[in-house]
């Protein structure tokens, strides 16, 4: 189960090299798009912790993405703080608010928790409009585009691409390490059988709240990166669709493995664009069909299926499949409507 197992290190190394080389091979615009993939992957990493590993469902992570985005925007525009201060601050603030929501979440389960968090996603844009002195109201806040450090001969798109992916990589390793130990075991135990977990001394209140805050912090960091890349925040940026979209990304990517986050990030960024290319008249239909197809054909998500294929080839019919089975969450996400 260790992240330092050679095959896992190898997989991470290969992906890291690919990520490092891509900007050199692709136009600046592609780096810009892939920066969003990194941001969405971070948000989905949080959902994998919350839903995949702990069995709680949130339809409201768009709210934490909004909190992260506005944290970095307000700190930059009102207090003149640099983005490298704003990004961690976004994570901390979203995490703190996540603790508050997590405490409420303790009392709710399954569909009720989904509904309560959905209310959060719906209400945040309105709240942002209300405190217009701080948030710029409906008009939002225009941010200064990101600039590479002086003396570094790199264009801004590629620079911020590396920043975003470095953060994503660091959070990936951190998550893998934390989930390996006592913390990860406790989260999974609560997911699989709460009563049994409690009788073994796992404090459900502590761990469930922690899972919520932890994933909210990731969503906050993702929101900060998106806001900086877009160089603009406004309430319209954070409609409730966003919450659904990242959850779709998590489900399609796969909630079993952390790699689901990377695949999910690609899905969130490129599936709508691809759907529009396939059929300009009805992109949401193409989107919905693609969604249903993946859910039917790959119940473990795209990453889960890929991992199973690789493992199956390595030791046919072996323990790999069984291990992946054991990893799969007992609680599966509620059926999700395609984002309109």
């Amino acid at each position, binding site marked *: 189960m260790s992240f330092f197992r050679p095959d896992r290190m190898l997989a991470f190394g290969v992906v890291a090299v690919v990520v490092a080389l891509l900007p050199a091979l692709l*136009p600046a615009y592609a780096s810009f798009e892939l920066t969003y993939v990194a941001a969405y992957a971070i948000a989905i990493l949080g959902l994998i912790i919350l839903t995949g590993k702990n069995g709680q469902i949130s339809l409201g992570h768009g709210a934490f993405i909004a909190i992260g985005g506005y944290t970095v925007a307000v700190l930059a525009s009102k207090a003149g703080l640099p983005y490298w201060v704003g990004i961690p601050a976004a994570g901390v603030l979203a995490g703190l608010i996540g603790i508050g929501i997590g405490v409420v979440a303790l009392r709710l389960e399954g569909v009720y928790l989904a509904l309560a968090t959905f209310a959060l996603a719906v209400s945040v844009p309105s709240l942002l409009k209300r405190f217009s002195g701080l948030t710029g109201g*409906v*008009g*939002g806040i225009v941010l200064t585009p990101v600039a590479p450090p002086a003396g570094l001969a790199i264009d801004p798109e590629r620079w911020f691409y590396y920043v975003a992916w470095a953060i994503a990589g660091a959070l990936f390793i951190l998550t893998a390490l934390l989930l390996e130990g006592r913390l990860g075991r406790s989260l999974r135990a609560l997911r699989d059988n709460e009563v049994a977990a409690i009788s073994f001394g796992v404090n459900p209140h502590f761990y469930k709240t922690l899972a919520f805050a932890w994933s909210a912090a990731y969503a906050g960091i993702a929101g900060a990166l998106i806001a900086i890349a877009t160089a603009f925040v406004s309430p319209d*940026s954070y409609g409730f*669709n966003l919450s659904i979209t990242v959850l779709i990304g998590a489900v399609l990517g796969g909630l079993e493995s952390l790699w689901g986050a990377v695949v999910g990030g690609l899905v969130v960024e490129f599936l709508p664009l691809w759907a529009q290319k396939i059929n300009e008249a009805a992109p949401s239909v193409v989107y919905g069909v693609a969604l249903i197809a993946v859910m039917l054909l790959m119940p473990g998500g795209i990453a889960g299926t890929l991992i199973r294929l690789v493992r199956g080839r390595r030791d046919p019919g072996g323990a790999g499949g069984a291990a992946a089975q054991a990893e799969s969450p007992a609680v599966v996400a509620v059926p999700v409507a395609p984002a309109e």
Partner: protein
Amino acid sequence: MLTIRQASAWVAALAAFAFTATSIGPVSAEDGVTPTEILLGGTDPFSGPASAYGAVGKGSAAYFQYVNDHGGVNGRKIIYKDLDDGYSPPQTVQLTRQLVEQDKVFAIFASLGTACSTAIRPYLNQNKVPQLFVATGASKWAHDAAEFPWTIGWQPDYESEAIIYGRNVVKEKPNAKVAIIYQNDDFGQDYLNGFKQGLGSHASAIVKTASYEVTDPDVSSQIASLKASGADTLLIAATPKFAIQSLVATAQQGWKPQIYLTNVSSAQPIMRAATKAGGGPEATNGVISTQYSIDPADPKWANDPGYKLFKEIMDKYVPGADQTNGIYLIGMAYAYTMVDVLKSAGKDLTREKAMKAALSLNETDNPFLYTGLKVVTSPTNHFPITSEALVKYTDGKWVATGAVIDARAIIKTEK
């Protein structure tokens, strides 16, 4: 494994290919212009909460098709790549960058929504890509022209419209006592500023103002406080939901001021809803608003050449769509001005020339506009349409009052 010799042969072949590729490329140095085509890009909400506005993009696309089928512009066909941003600014930014960097569009045309268009404005100006005829009524497109010279709006801005109401109050009722309800954001502020400019030396006629937040559930308490001020004239600078609430509350509280209602909230379905909820025609009779385009829902335009053209284009290029929906027509009106700009920018089309043409417009023949209205710009005046016709709601429909007021002489070009 490649040997050095093989590798160098490959490099030489690639270089030769790259060289020939550039030498046989388009004649024009400008992105998005070939001898046969002009590529325009845009973003519209075809999905999501504001998808009703997507009809603007469809109307524009239909008009471009019509122009292409009638010979195009200076021998070139217009290709309009209009993408769905779902009214979400991060989407707008990504799609716009895709349009500029990947599809290499010549210009961004009629991107819709104030927030979405604000998000892409710095990028487009930095890259000197024309952001022509932003589809929102914010006055900042004109006021910020010094900072963002590659951006220009089109429709009458909220400030100009409020000036028009102010002028009308001064003319019709110089001793009026005016109350104002406005939305507490840029839209409401534009209105407030404009109305004061329109009143000019009569600015003291404003006896009370009340604002609401878009998150407020109801505005009837604001209306009650405005009524208590003793005002006899009410200006409603509110988005549709709150405009209906204002009209209804005014009627229910037995207050009978002369009402001026923003064009934003003057569409027929809104007026009908207010009439019904307000307890009958009394609730809306006599309300004054403005129009700047043909209203295809109103039979009085049936014989107007502009309406006939609209109908012809709708029949052919947007079959099955609702032909009383004025949003399609607005899209065509935008596209008409765009075609004018491309025409006058000439055969040797560049972004700079197009921008210059967009800032020296004197379009008097846009068939989709209200009779007699013009689209006029100059390098120092970025307000394309500043005049509107005043209309009065009478027994279920808007009736022309005959007055067309131009705010151009009053509006301040600098903020």
